[in-house]
Structure formats: C-alpha cells, structure tokens
C-alpha cells in the first residue's frame, strides 16, 4: 500500500496517521471522500424520489398516452445514467459475464419462476385480507395500444429489469460500498429498493427479493444475473395478469 500526503505529496510505504514532513493529518482525506459518497447516495435517492412524484402527476394528467410513458422511462434512464457517469468505470465493469457459468443461468431462470408465483399468491392473500387493496392488472393497463402485450412487456418487464438493476445494484451499490461493509450495502440497497416502490405490502416481498439480487451482485460482480431474474419475475407476473384477463 502506498499513501500520499495530499499537502506536500510525500509518499509513504506504510500507513501513517500524520505526515512526517509537514505534520498534516493523512487519514483526514478518507472522511472527505466519504462525505462525497454519502452526498451521492442521498442525492441519487432524492432525485429518484422527486422523479416518482413527477411521474405520478404526468400519469394522472396524461392517462393512456404512449408518448408520456416513453418520456417517463427516458427521464428515469437519464437520471440513473447521469449519476452513473460520476463514477463510470466500476459501473461498466458490472456488465461483464466472466464469472457466469451455465449453472448460474439455470439458477437465474428457475428462481424467478418460484418468486413470481410466491408473490402472486401473497398479493392475492393480502387482497383477501384488505378489501381496499384492489390490485391493478398490468396487462389491462396497456389495452389502449395496438400491441398491448409487447408494450406491457417493454414497460413492466424489460425497462425495470435494465434500469432498476443499474440504479440499485449498480450506482447505489457502488456508492454505499465505499462508505460501509458489503453486508450492510446489500441490506441498505434492498431496503431502499423496497421503500421506493411506495407500498407497505409489497415491501414484505421486495425487500427479500432485493437482498437476493444484492447478494448475487456482490458475489459474482455482474448485473446480468439480477437483470435476468428481475425480467423473468416481472414477465411471469404480467403473463398471469394476461391469463386472468382473458379467462375471468
């Protein structure tokens, strides 16, 4: 390990608390980068939060409007890419597939089959308990368009899998890892991932789902497994809605 005094540029080969040449505290620099990372974490989350509020007003003002929906998705992608560009290299490294073997792909395909059905029946159970929790049919939302299944897949399964994984397992994960331990980073990203979905009931399943995605991200240093699981999970939920729509 080589440590550089930021005040006089003197180089140390072992860890020192104070520079032996100019007397400046050397460790102090740790906390200033820490402060920057904390500011990034809070800034990024707040940007997403405010954007969610904006999206809500856009969707109520322009219901059933494809242009509005596309602009909303592009806007979200821009926020995530903007924050990713602050520290791009470690983010780009997450798009490698070096550590992924065939068995991981099999795992990434089977897991969401299990999680999506658990979540589907869990939501059904919650709705039977709480009368007002009438859930939306994701497929039905896109019936106003020419190819509802295509657009529903695009907006419900594909875009969240790509953008949310980059946002939470990419940008937020990288920033948190700089200020705390890996274990706490997994917990914190899962917590925020669940909280921003704005529902106390879905928190109960999104939180463990986020823990799994965060664990895979830290274990294999790739976003691909998370994206596959996230996509298939959302896609199966959508297909159940599709099936229910034409059968009930």
């Amino acid at each position: 390990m080589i440590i550089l005094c930021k005040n006089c540029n003197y180089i140390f080969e072992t860890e020192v608390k104070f520079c032996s040449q100019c007397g400046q505290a050397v460790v102090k620099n740790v906390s200033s980068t820490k402060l920057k990372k904390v500011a990034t974490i809070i800034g990024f989350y707040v940007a997403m939060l405010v954007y969610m509020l904006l999206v809500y007003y856009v969707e109520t003002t322009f219901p059933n409007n494809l242009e509005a929906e596309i602009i909303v998705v592009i806007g979200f992608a821009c926020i995530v890419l903007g924050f990713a560009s602050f520290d791009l290299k470690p983010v780009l490294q997450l798009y490698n597939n070096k550590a992924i073997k065939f068995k991981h792909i099999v795992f990434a395909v089977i897991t969401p089959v299990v999680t999506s059905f658990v979540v589907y029946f869990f939501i059904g159970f919650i709705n039977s308990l709480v009368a007002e929790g009438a859930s939306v049919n994701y497929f039905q939302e896109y019936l106003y368009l020419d190819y509802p299944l295509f657009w529903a897949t695009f907006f419900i399964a594909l875009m969240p899998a790509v953008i949310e994984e980059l946002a939470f397992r990419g940008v937020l994960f990288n920033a948190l890892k700089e200020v705390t331990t890996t274990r706490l980073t997994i917990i914190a990203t899962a917590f925020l991932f669940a909280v921003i979905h704005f529902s106390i009931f879905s928190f109960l399943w999104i939180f463990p789902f986020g823990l799994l995605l965060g664990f895979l991200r830290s274990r294999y240093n790739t976003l691909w497994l998370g994206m596959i699981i996230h996509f298939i999970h959302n896609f199966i939920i959508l297909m159940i809605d599709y099936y229910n729509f034409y059968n009930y």
Partner: protein
Amino acid sequence: MEVSQSIILQSECKHCETPVKEDHSFCSECGFPLKGSDQDVAKFYAKRVMDKRKTNNAHEKIKAARKTLFIIAAIITVFGFFIYYKTQDLVPLTINLVVSVVYVVLGVWSKQRPLIALILGLLLYLTLIIITAIADPLTLVAGILWKILIIGYLAKGIYSASSINKVA
C-alpha cells in the same frame, strides 16, 4: 554524554513516545513537531484541544440524530392512533405501527452503525413525506417547521457520522 542524550531524545516522540526516525520533522503517529520551536509545540497542543472538541461535537450531533429516529417513531405511532379514532380503520393504524417499528429498529441499530442507520432513516422519512403528498398534496406544508427540524437533525447527524473516521 550530551550528544548521546540528544540522540535518545530525537528517537522518541515527546508526546506519545512512539519511536521516530531522525529525518522526520513530525511524529507520524500524533503529528508532534519534533524539530519545532516552543511556539510550534504550543500550536500542536492547541490544535489537539480543538480536534477533541470537534469530535465531541460530532458525537453530540449523532446522539441528537439518534434521538430524532425515536421521536419519528413516536410521532408516527400517535398519528396512527389519531387516524384510527377518527376512522375506526385498522389498516392505516397497522401501517403506521409497522413504520414506527422500523424506526425503533433503526434507532437501536444506529448505536453501532450510526452512518448507515441515519441515512436509511432520513431517506425513509423523505419517502413518507412524498407518499403522503401524493395522497394529499396539502400535507406537504402541514407541520413544515417540524419536518425541516427533523430533516435538519438527521442531516447534521449524517454529516458528523461521515466526518469521524470510523467504519459505518
């Protein structure tokens, strides 16, 4: 005799007694000016007092932010019962109780992990404000002074917790 004594004095820091190399002007352990004048030594001790005060101040701010987490838990519980007496609806009461349990957990956890617990506490609080604003935009301005105060205390705690050199 005198020469050898000065070598002994040179090889050990006067303040923290860490062995030091001859070419060092400052102790690499505590920053003591090994070759400095009396004035430099006085400055060194003055700075240490200042630093200590700063760290104490940081710990005070973290403590205040920790208390804020428990205060949020209490406020949310009270509001839950208030809504329940008005509407006799168990759902909002349950939601409020769950959220205040989360705040109690964060508050307890912030003893060991102040930085991460306070960040999560602040971001959850901001999310709750936005969710209630979606349901009823007027709530955004209701009790705005309280909200600013709570956010301020949490933010100060986060700033202090990231300034002190400790694993979060």
